[in-house]
Each structure stands twice: as C-alpha cells, then as structure tokens.
C-alpha cells in the first residue's frame, strides 16, 4: 500500500534523504531505527507534506496514488497518519473542536456518514479512556500544557479516531514511563488490523517487545542500510549504531 522508491529529499538546501526505498504491505509492522539526525523524522515530514521538506527525486505512493501530488490534508484523508515526535501546542483551539473537525473532514472525504455531535462525544470519550487520558483533556486547548506523555497519548487517540491505513509513529515511546508505554502499545495493538500497517520509528528495543515488528530497518545518513527481522533490533541495541558504520 505504501511504496517509497529511491526517495531523495532536502530541507533548506540540505540533502537529508539520499535514496530511500521501502515497501509496506497491508497489515505489516515496520520498525525504523537509526542514529540522531539520520533522517527518520524527515521521512515522516516529507511523506505527510510539511512545507519546506521537499522531495527532489524518487516516488512515494499510497494505494498507487502519488503522495507528492496531494496537499497535506489530502494525504491524511487518504489514510496516512503521522504521530509526531514533538506535537505542537495550539492554545485557543479546544481538543474537542479539533478532533471533531478532523474526524468530520476525514469522514466526508471518505464519503462516510457524518457523526452527529452526540455520537462524536461518545466516541471521543471512549478513546480517551482507552489511552488513559482524563476527559477533561477534551476541553483543553490542543496539547496545551500537556506533559510529554500526555501529548503522545493524545496522538494515539487521534490515530484511533481517524482509523488511518498507514500509521507512522515517530518516537512515540520516547519520554514515556513504563505504564504509559504499556498504554501506548496497547492502543497500537488494538488498532492492528490486516488492512492497517505501521511504521514505528524508535531508538529502543523496549517498545518492540510490546509491538512486535515484522521488519526492522536501520536508517543511516538518509538511506536504509540494513533490514532484517525483529532480532535486528536486539542486535542493534547490543552493539550500538557504531556497528552499522562498519557494515
């Protein structure tokens, strides 16, 4: 469903991705690991359509549709979801208003019946509970004053509400204590579906104990330099990224 072929991308005239290829099929879980600055977040930004992150060569398609032909919101509506490493705070827009606008937009695009306010409230409350966020969070500004862990759980809640096809989780595990990690992993596992796939960016093998990947890739200097099964994550944690450079 997601096909990335020989992707090159630059940010402010700096080449970051240098020929990255990856194919993700329905139901698969891919983990991407790699040193700081290797381009993991950049990949998520380029795919999701962040301004200033420009694909200079190669292709990326979602269900055979060219991602780079679409605005960021169209990509989201077509089923791509990025859980941010650093979710932004938006004071003044309530989480509830935001989630409703988001779900409405996605459902409309997918020609699904709109949810009325009551049904939506009910759904949002349920999802809050699933990621262990108090319902009071729905009334607060988007991520406003949320702790690091609360922001990450809010991201997972959005993923649950939007039911995307391809989910990219960018270091959703960083900064989580063990209980929160469990909540996030449970959330992701609850979303696993033969038609839904995941790209999980992480530095830690720990998360992969909970969400078992089908493939592990190592990203270094803008390219995937090694791919393997879940045991590659263990090996990496043991030997460190330095080991990659010697390959």
């Amino acid at each position, binding site marked *: 469903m997601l096909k990335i072929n020989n992707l090159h991308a630059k940010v402010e005239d700096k080449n970051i991705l240098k020929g990255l290829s990856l194919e993700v099929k329905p139901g698969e879980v891919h983990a991407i690991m790699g040193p700081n600055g290797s381009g993991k977040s950049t990949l998520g930004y380029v795919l999701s359509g962040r301004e200033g992150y420009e694909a200079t060569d190669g292709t990326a398609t979602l269900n055979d549709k060219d991602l780079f032909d679409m605005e960021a919101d169209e990509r*989201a509506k077509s089923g791509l979801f990025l859980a941010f490493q650093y979710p932004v705070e938006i004071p003044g827009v309530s989480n509830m208003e935001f989630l409703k606008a988001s779900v409405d937009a996605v459902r409309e695009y997918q020609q699904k019946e709109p949810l009325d306010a009551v049904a939506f409230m009910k759904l949002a409350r349920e999802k809050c509970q699933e990621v262990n966020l108090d319902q009071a969070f729905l009334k607060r500004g988007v991520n406003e004053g949320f702790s690091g862990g609360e922001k990450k759980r809010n991201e997972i809640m959005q993923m649950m509400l939007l039911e995307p096809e391809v989910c990219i989780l960018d270091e959703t595990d960083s900064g989580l204590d063990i209980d929160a990690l469990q909540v996030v992993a449970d959330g992701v596992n609850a979303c696993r579906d033969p038609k839904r796939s995941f790209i999980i960016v992480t530095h830690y093998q720990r998360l992969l104990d909970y969400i078992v990947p089908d493939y592990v890739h190592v990203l270094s200097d803008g390219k995937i330099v090694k791919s393997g099964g879940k045991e590659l994550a263990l090996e990496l944690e043991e030997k460190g990224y330095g080991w990659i450079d010697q390959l």
Partner: protein
Amino acid sequence: MSFTIDFENRDQLDLPALVSKPLPWLKEKQRLAFEQFKSAKTPTRKIEHWKYNDMTFLKGQSFTQSKRANESVLTEVNGEFNQITFEDAIEIFIVDGHIVSDISALRSIEGLTITNFNQTSPAQQDIINSHADIELNSKNLLANLNEATLSDGLLIEVEPKKVIKQPIYIRHVTLSSENPAVSNQKIVVQLAPSAELTLVEHFESSLDDSEQLALQQTSIYLAANSRFTHYRLNLEAETARQVSQVKTTLDRDAQLNSFYLGLGSKLNRTDIETIHAGQNAECNITGIYLPANEQAIDYHTNIEHRVPHCNSNEVFRGIIADKASATFNGKIHIFQDAQKSDAQLNNKNLLLTNQAEVNTKPELEIYADDVSCAHGATVAQLDNKSVYYLQTRGIDKQKAKKMLSIAFVQELLNQIKHESVRDYLSHLLDNYMVKVAN
C-alpha cells in the same frame, strides 16, 4: 437644519449660521469647541495625533450635514440591517446622527430616564454641559466639530440603586447619501450611586461609495459603586468612515466593563478615555479589531489613574488581513498620588499577510512609585507548524487558518456576559473568517 463644512476654509465659518436649531443652554461650550475647531491644524500624518490616519479626504472636500430622516426610514433600516436579538432590550434608532425613534413612546422603566437633548430640563442641561469636555477634545478637531454643531443627542440617566435589567440597544445607522455628508451625535450616560446599566451601541452603514463621515461621542459618568456594561460594535460597511470618542469617568467603587469590536470601515478611529477619579474604581476594557482589504481601524486608549487603589485591565487583540492596517495606542497614566494602582494592558496582533500592517504603541506615564503595572504588545503571524499539524489531521489549509485565527480572538469573545451579543458576534466572526480565508 443642515450646514456645510469646508475644512480648508474653516477659519471663515460662522457657528450660529451653521447650527440653525441650536441648543441655547449649550451655546457657550459650543462656541469654545468651535473656536478650537477653527484654530486646529488640519490633520495630516505630520501631527502626532493623526500620525496613523489618512485624513487626506478632508482636504478640498466640503461636507453637508446629513438630513434628518423621518420615522418611516426605519422600515427600510430594519430590512437592510440585521440586529442582535435581545429578549427585552429597549431599542433606539439613530439614523445619520439623528434620533429617529420616538423617545417619548419608549417603554417606561422605573429608575431609567431617557431624554432627547432638546427636551431636557435645566438640571439635565447642567449634566450635559458637564460632559462637554472641551479640554479633552482639544487635540481632536473632529471631536470639537461634533460638540460645536450638536443639535441632537440623548441623555440616559439611572437613579440611585436602580438596577436596569433591560439593555439599552442603540442602533447607529448611516445611510447612503448623494453628497459628501457628515453626521454628528452625542450620547450622555449618567449613573447615580449604586445604579446598574448595560448599553449596547451597534454601528451599521449602507455599503456605497458616497463620501461620508460619521462623528460620534459617548460620554459616561459612573457615580460611586455604580456598574456599567458597555458594548461598542462597529460593524459598518467597508466604505464607512467614523471618528468617535468614548469617555468614561469612574467615581469611587464604580465598575466599568466594556467591549469593543471593529470590523469594516475604511477609516474607523475610536479614542477611548477612561478616568479613575474615585478610589477603588475598576475598569475591564476588551477589544477586537478585524480590518480586511484596505480598511484601517484604530483604537487610541488612555487610562488615567488619578487616585489610589484603582484597577484597570485592558486587553485588545487584532487580526489584520489583506492590505489592511490597524493602530492600537495604549496609554496608561498614573498620577503621583495614585499609589497602589494596578494597571494591566495587553495587546496582541496577528498579521495574515505580508502587506497587513499594525502599529502598536504602548505608552506609560507613571508618577507614583508603589504601583503594579504590566504592559505587553506582540505582533505575530499564523504559525506554519500549527497549520501543518491541523492539515496532517485532514483539516484543509483554509479551515486550519480559520480555526487558528478564530482561536486568537475567541478567548475574548468567550468573556462576553450577554449571551445574545456573544452568539451574534460568534456568527459574525465565522462569516468574517470565511471572507478572509478566501
């Protein structure tokens, strides 16, 4: 009943000839105001007071005073303009500066008196005279022109301890005219000790290209422990021009809550003068300005703390779209004796385009040493990262920008106590955002 003003040759103008139905008891003040009007320099950007206003339209232009419309015009007005739906307001129409509603036929409410200037008793005339502040107007020749040529106005009085539940809803309407026209008008509000009142002033105008200039002043006196809620909603068409002043004097323990909205008008300038004259008085002044296209909206505020222990809290936010401009001039003046004053002022601006312009000018004059005073002004653009974040959740760019802009002013709207006003303005804001986001 009408007069013509030629700004270029105003030193040759003769007051009695201008005002054919004068108010004899206001004659002396009017004469002084007129003298000042004649001797004042023509507004240009070189004069500090008019630095940010394009007043070139005054040059070489003569304005004739708007004619009085008769009451039948109200049918037309009601059809053309939409109004705030209050359950129980006392509605008064002022069309082109003239009071068109039949004041004597208004519902009578115990403790509340509304009187047309030309129907006033000598005691009421003294009150109106006390509100003719020539000193205050001295920098502003248009304020003086307004005062000098008044032949119509409204005095609103509330008796001691009377709490008036029904808001007074004044609809100031400017209709189109063939010739360049000037309208002028004044409202005087006098609250006795422990009285309470809400006044909603709603300004509207026909959309046309006629050269119009609306002059207006509202002057308020709040006696000890009285409470006054004031809305000034400038919702004129984009072609309108208005220069107005609001002056409020607070005696001890009095409280003022006011809300300003500026939307529309190619020139709209409001000077807001708030004077704490009695201890423990408090004002909360909130405002939103939303100029778009090539509009210019200005608020010049001056808060004076003349005596100790008063609080003032002023918050203005503006969104400036397209090639529009806004000026916010926030002055706080704390007199030497005004110890323990607490004065907070905050102004935030959002520029939606590179051509949008805002001048925000904080001014502090503090002569007392034991005061708490905070003053902040910021200018920002919409945060790209926030727009992108919303987009990654399926919300299109336009809607994302709209949500973020509304959020910027929503906080202030939420504080509006009168639900009918809040609902009306939320709806208006929605329409504004649709227009601006395109």
